[in-house]
């Protein structure tokens, strides 16, 4: 006889965090951070006002959006072949138009505030990696709390520490960002890789009953 789990809240929370169960999202997000790290490193290494440097600066938004779209496609592709045949398919309701606009508006306000602060306080540029780390930490902590995923708290702590390192060591700001994104991508590869390893060890492709 089967055992009924009376904790429906946990059942629903497990369903909501299923998207993150295989670690693929962290690996994909780590890939985006690695691209960003290489982008900032190129900015440091390339001579200022060189054609390549200007091209990189102009193409920043395109680079971020392109890598986000590409990694999303890769995640979906891998999930179709790895996750869904093992533990099943779940799709999540997209947030409503109003909620998306509110999120986009808040993100723009936040970005504008940060930009204005750095523009009016040039010495505070040294804090860029620490601020980036704090933003990452806040996002991971909220996700960890909402989904009940302890490894996201580890990522939040890592983001906070890794963001503070370049600032506290007095690293030049762009190099500091390159270092932060490089290190946080490594943390995400480790976290995602371990989650994926554990997922593969504990699951097997479904067989017909």
């Amino acid at each position: 006889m089967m055992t009924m789990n009376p904790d429906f809240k946990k059942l629903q929370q497990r369903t909501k965090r299923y998207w993150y169960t295989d670690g693929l999202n962290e690996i994909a997000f780590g890939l985006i951070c690695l691209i960003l790290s290489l982008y900032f490193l190129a900015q440091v290494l390339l001579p200022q006002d060189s054609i390549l440097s200007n091209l990189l600066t102009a193409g920043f938004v395109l680079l971020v959006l392109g890598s986000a779209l590409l990694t999303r496609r890769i995640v979906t592709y891998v999930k179709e072949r790895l996750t869904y045949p093992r533990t099943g398919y779940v799709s999540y309701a997209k947030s409503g138009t109003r909620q998306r606009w509110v999120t986009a508006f808040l993100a723009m306000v936040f970005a504008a505030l940060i930009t204005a602060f750095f523009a009016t306080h040039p010495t505070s540029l040294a804090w860029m990696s620490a601020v980036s780390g704090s933003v990452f930490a806040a996002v991971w902590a909220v996700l960890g709390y909402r989904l009940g995923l302890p490894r996201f708290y580890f990522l939040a702590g890592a983001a906070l520490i890794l963001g503070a390192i370049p600032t506290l060591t007095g690293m030049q700001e762009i190099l500091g960002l390159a270092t932060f994104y490089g290190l946080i991508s490594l943390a995400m590869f480790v976290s995602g890789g371990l989650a994926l390893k554990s997922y593969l060890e504990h699951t097997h492709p479904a067989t017909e009953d």
Partner: protein
Amino acid sequence: MSEERHSLTDIDRLIHEPARLMIIAILYAVESADFLYLKRETQLTKGNLSSHLSRLEDAGYVEIEKTYQGKVPLTICHLTQNGRQAFETYRDQIKSFVDNTLV
């Protein structure tokens, strides 16, 4: 009959059955889930899950669609608006009953 007792006897017995309640609770949290996911999470046998899903489908609470995700054949289940409404009503009734119970 008191209002509380009346509200308890009015409970939707189709949802009240534990296995179906698990299915509905899962589907309520997402847009849709496939047969394999539901089977793993509820730990029901294939036959039992099919039977419960059929009953929920007959009641108009769940819609079942056979489709493909890439090349993988999927049996996708999702709650209908009626199903969502029924679950919310059930939840409110149970909560109200528990709230009015002495500890």
